[in-house]
């Protein structure tokens, strides 16, 4: 059972983690020092370098989790559910960070923590949807039913995102009391800014992949421990045959 080759962290993951750290460091340098301040937003633009990658990865995480869920429904392998769950946890974390980031951004620009900005509204709804996913997970004991039902929920969540985006966008268009883009897209990007942003997106994506890999690795280990029927498995049992 406790085969060290399975419990030890694979070497590639450690190397990948170190590379990730380096990329994030360079990204941080770019965001804090290299990037010029924005004409309109000044140094506030530096928040954008963290905010935008986090937001993008949050949305991608929901899609990835839904794809793992579909794979589970198709193949029925427990590991796909572990992957879906781990990715969903990341989706929750990243979308909460996005909402917090959006609110930090909106306080100095609009002097209010909350604005019905389309993307911010959409992300808040996504937080609610993913929280619902975890509530249902917590309520189902049987691991297979839990995996199936949560895969189904994630598929519905994924399908709801474009509609929620449209609705949030139009909601704002009809009530644009104050509208400032909270994602920096209103900013005319100078090439340095764009490079720094893309670097930070890469760094953020690598952090995401690193944590997901660790999460799945741990999930795989606890999956192995979960086989409580192993004690009876392997014992040769006769087939009760009524012919």
């Amino acid at each position, binding site marked *: 059972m406790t085969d060290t080759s399975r419990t030890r962290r694979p070497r590639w993951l450690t190397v990948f983690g170190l590379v990730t750290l380096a990329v994030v460091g360079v990204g941080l340098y770019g965001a804090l020092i290299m990037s010029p301040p924005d004409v309109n937003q000044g140094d506030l633009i530096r928040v954008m370098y963290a905010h935008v990658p986090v937001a993008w990865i949050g949305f991608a995480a929901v899609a990835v989790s839904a794809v793992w869920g579909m794979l589970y429904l198709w193949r029925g392998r427990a590991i796909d559910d572990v992957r879906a769950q781990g990715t969903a946890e990341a989706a929750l974390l990243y979308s909460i960070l996005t909402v917090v980031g959006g609110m930090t951004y909106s306080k100095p620009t609009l002097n209010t923590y909350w604005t019905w900005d389309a993307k911010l509204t959409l992300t808040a709804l996504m937080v609610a949807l993913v929280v619902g996913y975890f509530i249902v997970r917590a309520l189902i*004991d049987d691991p297979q039913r839990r995996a199936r039902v949560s895969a189904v929920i994630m598929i519905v969540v994924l399908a709801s995102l474009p509609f929620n985006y449209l609705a949030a966008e139009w909601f704002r268009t009809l009530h644009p009391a104050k509208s400032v883009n909270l994602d920096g897209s209103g900013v005319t990007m100078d090439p340095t800014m764009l490079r720094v942003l893309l670097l930070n997106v890469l760094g953020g994506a690598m952090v995401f992949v690193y944590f997901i890999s660790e999460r799945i690795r741990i999930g795989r280990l606890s999956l192995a421990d979960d086989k409580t*029927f192993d004690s*009876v498995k392997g014992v040769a049992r006769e*087939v*009760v045959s*009524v012919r």
Partner: protein
Amino acid sequence: MSGGTDELAIELREVTRRMGGEYVLRGVNLEVAAGRLVVLRGSNGTGKTTLLRLLATRLRPAGGQAFVFGHDLTRDGAAARARLGLLSVMGGSFPLLTGRENLELAAALAPGPREGAPRSDMAAGGAGFEGPLAGVGLEQAADKLVRTYSSGMKKRLGLARLLLLDPDLWLLDEPYAALDDLGKRLMDECVTAAKARGRTVFMASHESDRDHLGPDAVIELRGGTLRMFGA
């Protein structure tokens, strides 16, 4: 005994299943040839109902493989469902419909009589649902709401549905519970007649005085696995 075919009505290979996180079935191996009558014993909570619901495709096996008439229950549940019927402990009828409406519902959702299969006399007995209803002694109560039925009557209605659909595999969960003496005799007759028509009957029962049914085998579920009774 009956027929010379080797077709297996039930085939379970290392089937496991949890209920509420705990493993109830821990590797069940079973083969039942078509046309046999098998009685399943076991004390309360050993997983008899779980096994029956699993065979009826309502629960999926957590591990192992399960087949009914060769149809994989996980992958091809619909094909298996077309050939089996389950009489649950409570009868499984809608309380706010009448007995007759419950049967109408079942008939409308079943794909129609299978070709070649001999229908039960009661199902063939006349138009509508009089046959099965009379067969279980519910003709007087047919147009009353099931809500007003006693638990024995609900069970009889479940039996009437089984007679109406007359599936190839009869799964009976504690069929004698809640029945009066007359009802028990009725159940005996139906089971015997079904077996005579070539149906396979798999019955979970506590009743030990049903030996006159002449089951082909009595098996026991204990500790999550199956064995021959008494073995």
